């Protein structure tokens, strides 16, 4: 097991030198002594090579896209183009301060302006704010816009948002943050919204409806027109959780099928890296009547060039980020969109759909699939057969996949499928790669029969064996105990 960086510290070592102090004014002459720290913070002391030899081996303990398939459903772990990584590191992108005069930011502002427009075109919506820093913050921003819209109309009685039981956990959490009550909508036997139930829960208090489409089962909500008409009939707004937009790009425009606003996950749909849990970026797009409520500033363009546009600040919901959001992520998404163009983006959606259906076809005889329709970009299999026959759970299967060199699917989600395994291969996986993953899944199905004990003890070959999560909670240890 790797030592922590703190255990590697040797007093006096350093990994950086600065020029000599010039001017060198005694600190206590410029800052009152009583404000100064008495004891230095115990930051570890290492040379540069010590630091490298700590973090590089650590990195090797991670699974990553470049090691192998990473089929986390709804997370869209696609390949991140290397050129975009090198372009984004240009000093003239990295070293820009957010409060420089606009005249010195024209290159980046132009990119953001174009990105706003491209996202509007892709979504069929009218106006886009790039400010939210992640998908969940995009949801929060969108729901705040719904709140602002109803308040402006005097719809003060509207206090409920409807969300399907298959939705991402961020959806209800985002609504709660805005102060809305969440009403849960059941799914029907086809894995879609239950329309009869929807009609029974929609009323004058309905402020909006949050839908993921394709939904988290990977199924297109084909009653979308009727759903939108029901919600709009009570002046509710239709919100699209854009986590699965990668399945629709160039095939369908959300703005043309009844949605009034949505968020985008640039780190999913547009191939920007996930960074081990961020930074992401969660722009929000809206129809024209909601545009006055978007966060400030937007990026505008006039005869002098590109500028921060605060013109709607009176009606805006305000800000959700200190400055303009995760610009470095936006740059990569822009590079991706303009490289692929309309044809490429459409290919992405098509290939994502073909890959998911192909993988489903390969494993469907070995794992139960509750909703066996053709899927969009992902599908949900489960291990109810294995659980019932051999006592092997989805967790066991997930851990065994790690032994075989793959990341596990998203497990135990959506909540409406017992023992769920939500599988999203993405379009950047080759047929060979899908075949190899399916073979591993099929081998595991065989192992469940022959040697269930093996599965309970998996993983065997990973940097650590199965981790004790219960102990982590009971004996909470969230920082290394430093010694003087």
């Amino acid at each position, binding site marked *: 097991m*790797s030592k*922590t960086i703190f255990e590697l510290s040797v007093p006096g070592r*350093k*990994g950086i030198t600065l020029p000599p*102090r*010039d*001017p060198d004014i005694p*600190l206590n002459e410029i800052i009152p002594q009583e404000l100064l720290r008495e004891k*230095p*913070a115990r*930051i*570890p002391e290492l040379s540069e090579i010590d630091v*490298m030899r700590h973090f590089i081996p650590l*990195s090797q303990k991670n699974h990553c896209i470049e090691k192998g398939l990473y089929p986390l459903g709804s997370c869209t*772990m696609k390949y991140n183009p290397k*050129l975009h*990584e090198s372009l984004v590191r240009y000093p003239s992108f990295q*070293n820009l*301060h*957010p409060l*420089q005069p606009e005249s010195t930011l024209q290159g980046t502002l*132009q990119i953001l302006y174009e990105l706003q427009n*491209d996202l509007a075109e892709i979504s069929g919506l009218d106006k886009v704010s790039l400010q939210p820093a*992640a998908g*969940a913050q995009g949801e929060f921003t969108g729901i705040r816009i719904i709140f602002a819209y109803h308040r402006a109309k005097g719809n003060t009685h509207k206090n409920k948002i409807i969300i399907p039981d298959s939705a991402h956990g961020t959806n209800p*959490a985002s*609504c709660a943050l805005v102060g809305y009550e969440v009403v849960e909508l059941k799914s029907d036997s086809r894995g879609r919204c239950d329309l009869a139930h929807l009609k029974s829960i929609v009323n004058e208090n309905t402020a909006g409806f949050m839908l993921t489409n394709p939904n988290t089962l990977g199924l*297109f909500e084909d009653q979308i027109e009727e759903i939108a008409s029901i919600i709009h009939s009570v002046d509710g707004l239709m919100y699209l959780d854009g986590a699965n937009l990668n399945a629709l790009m160039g095939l369908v425009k959300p703005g043309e099928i009844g949605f009034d606003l949505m968020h985008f996950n640039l780190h999913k749909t547009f191939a920007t890296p996930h*960074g*081990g*849990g*961020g930074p992401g970026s969660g722009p929000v797009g809206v129809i024209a009547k909601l545009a006055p409520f978007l966060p400030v500033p937007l990026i505008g363009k006039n005869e002098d060039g590109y500028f921060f546009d605060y013109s709607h600040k009176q009606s805006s919901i305000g800000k*959700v*980020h*200190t*400055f303009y959001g995760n*610009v*470095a992520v936006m740059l990569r998404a822009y590079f991706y969109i*303009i*490289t*692929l163009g309309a*044809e*490429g983006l459409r*290919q992405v959606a098509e290939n994502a*759909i*073909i*890959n998911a*259906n192909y993988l489903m*076809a390969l494993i469907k005889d070995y794992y139960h699939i509750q909703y066996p329709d*053709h899927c969009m970009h992902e599908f949900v299999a489960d291990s109810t057969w294995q659980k019932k026959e051999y006592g092997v759970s989805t967790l066991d299967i997930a851990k065994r996949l790690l032994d075989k060199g793959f*990341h596990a699917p998203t497990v135990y989600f959506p909540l409406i499928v017992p023992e769920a395994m939500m599988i999203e291969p993405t*379009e*950047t996986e080759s047929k060979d790669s899908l075949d190899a993953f399916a073979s591993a899944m099929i081998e595991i199905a065989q192992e469940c029969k022959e040697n269930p004990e093996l599965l309970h003890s998996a993983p065997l070959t*990973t940097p*650590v064996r199965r*981790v*004790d999560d219960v102990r982590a909670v009971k004996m909470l240890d*969230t*920082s*290394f105990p430093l010694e003087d």
Partner: protein
Amino acid sequence: MLSCKWAAKNFRIDINYNTKKVRYNILLIANGEIMSYIPNTDAERNQMLEKIGVHSFEELIQVIPRKFRLQELLNLSPPLSELELTQLVNALASKNIDTQKFISFLGAGVYDHFIPAAVDTIVSRPEFYTAYTPYQAEVSQGTLQYIYEYQTLICELTGMGISNASMYDGATAVAEAILMAVRKNHLKKAIISSAIHPEFIKVIQSYTEGIGLELVFCDIKYGRTDIANLADKMDENVSSVVIQTPNFLGNIEAMNELEKVVHSNPKTLFIASVDPVSLGILKPPSSYHADIVTGEGQALGNNMYMGGPLFGFFATHKDMARLMPGRIVGATVDVEGNRAYTLTLQAREQHIRREKATSNICSNESLCTLAATVYLSLLGKDGLIEVATQSAQKAHFLANEIASIPGFSLCYPETPFFKEFAIHCPVSAQKVIQDMLNKHIFAGVDLKSYGYDENTLLIAVTEKRTRAELENYATALREMNYE
């Protein structure tokens, strides 16, 4: 090149989806002509469609009502090769003027500190940047361990008992701290110092409006929170008090005195927003009994990127762990008893608790915290002190130089500051900024749009500025002869 691309924006290609001639009829342009990072060939795709049991891609999307299926391509510019993309981006990048070209004295939350090259080498490892949130702990020990180390560093800098894995930025961190205080004491009023970052205030308003929290603003006196005014506004309904130090104006707040007022109500939580670099030399928030400590972390080894990504840090007392927002990594063991790390206290989070979660946050700013962890590891104990000390020394040197120029003065000459200070100019700050821009200097932040006098300029100085650059700045101002 540029004009050609933008002109092409309106170029459309019509496609006929019903063509039966080709079995897989969607790809108008053969693989290889578009860089879409899709490996499969047409032949492979046909094999796959056969295995699926369909004759065409169209059959897979029959469920989408026909009238909703797009009949033409999106109106985007035509695809580019990687070479063309590079040429285009070169042209766009050249329209920026960055802080390597002009000398920067801009701050207000985002700072131009020196970043050692090893930081980017490590954050550029695909094993780190192409990984997802570490859901499968056994193949995510790299990410989990650096987050644990990051949490330890934040605890050490702040003196607090527990840190989370990060928030989006300093603004959302402090907004979520206010919400956490409400979870703790169920009181519905927060007092915010008017000296905190004005953009933080806007984000706090966005985050607290829905739950009906009353926000009360405390006045500024001599560039710091007015303690007497805070005492006037305190009552038994105050859930939390938010103070930033150094504050937006760069001034170091009297945290010891403020704390006594805050905790005059034992239920009220004291929320501090701090500059992590300042903690190299300034007293840790634990010393003044802060209850929740947040801040903007960009200054720790992260590039500015026009203001994003940033990252917020968030630390508190260990006994409030279960009220915290965001991911938390804990150390534990595997089945063989080896030390291992995992995401913990997940029962607080949205994927488990849904609308009852402590926050909606999912993705945070993990890779930025890796940069911070590597940065601090390279600096070490003395290096952080050195960065903080040199920043403070150079800022004070420049402040003195400017104060000696006729017509210029420090706004708060008696108030201690760290690496940033406000000056009063004889002309508008906007004019100073424009005149200095002509001398290739980003002179500072115009505070007019933040509600201050139009002659007020906020100047930040980091260790990167040389003595010559500081003297040039002062000389340039002097030679403007505004008076």
